[in-house]
């Protein structure tokens, strides 16, 4: 006799035997230590490796955003893109929105493609990761002669960190909902 489970046929007798298998048959301790240790490592990936992945995502996504939203005058098509729209919120508002878009879009993609355990680690140090990524981005922009002043840079920095946090939390809450509702 068999039952169907997700298109697979399970033998009822074997399943009953499996369910009632005596709990005295503990696996060897060394094997348990190895399995639990291996999976614990897999569920706690090193933050440096996650930051590396995040940087690669940001390099790709950030480059794409430069197509339609130049940062500190650095763009790909030398157009003004969304800057005209953002300028409606004033000069500071524009810098905040530019920073938020630049880092936020990367965090949207990161929240969608990273594994849940990687996002868990990322969220433990979101501010640190974002500050580091923003600093590296500003450094990279200054290497290509961007027009960065201290005040503009700081406002942009603030926008990027806030935008990054908001995007990550928003996207992760959607993804978490999808995982839990399966």
């Amino acid at each position: 006799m068999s039952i169907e489970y997700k298109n697979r046929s399970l033998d009822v007798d074997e399943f009953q035997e499996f369910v009632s298998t005596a709990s005295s048959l503990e696996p060897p301790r060394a094997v348990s230590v190895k399995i639990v240790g291996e999976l614990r490592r897999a569920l706690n990936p090193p933050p440096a490796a996650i930051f590396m992945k995040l940087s690669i995502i940001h390099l790709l996504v950030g480059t794409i955003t430069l197509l339609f939203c130049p940062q500190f005058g650095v763009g790909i098509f030398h157009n003004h893109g969304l800057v005209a729209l953002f300028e409606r919120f004033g000069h500071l508002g524009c810098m905040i929105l530019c920073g938020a878009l630049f880092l936020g879009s990367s965090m949207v993609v990161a929240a969608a493609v990273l594994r849940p355990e990687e996002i868990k680690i990322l969220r433990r140090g979101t501010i640190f990761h974002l500050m580091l990524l923003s600093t590296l981005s500003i450094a990279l922009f200054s290497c290509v002669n961007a027009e960065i002043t201290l005040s503009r840079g700081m406002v942009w920095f603030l926008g990027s960190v806030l935008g990054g946090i908001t995007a990550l939390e928003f996207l992760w809450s959607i993804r978490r909902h999808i995982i839990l509702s399966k």
Partner: protein
Amino acid sequence: MEGKEINNSGMGLTELRDEELMKAYQLGDEGAFEVLYTRHSPKVFGFLKKRVIKQDIAEDLFQAVFLKLHKSRSTYNSTLPFLPWLFALVQSVMVDGIRSKKRIQEVVYSTIPEKAATECGGESVGLQGLHGLSALSDAQRKAIQLRYEKELSFDEISSELKTSPSNVRQLISRGIRRLKEMGGKQ
């Protein structure tokens, strides 16, 4: 419900149902995995032990079950009961294990020249008798011999050959592939 929240509540992952633990595990909660492991590892190991005589093979399959559980956790649908899903996983690992062992034996033994096989009493021939093995590198040959003649585990072979278990797996799979290619040419 979220894995982190469950952990922080402190009121016991152990009190949660398997299906709830799987949800937390899908969100990356290692505590949820550990509770599931503690709860079900004796069942899995006991079931495998009844079907596989050799301890090291049972242990290899047991490890494979939990590695597969980890890799497939995102495919689990928590509206369905957990135990049949785990059982299906155990069965599939057992079938894969048996198939691969049989396939390897078929490949290895198919390289035995007919005359030598007859002289040595068919399948009881030692691996030293295989012509095919001489075409392998020393490390590949030694790894295959230790695995299929002495039936050592990957860990034991790795300490014998002073290399990592993953390298041992690679040596064996490359060796088997080479033997297969040679079998195809004959």
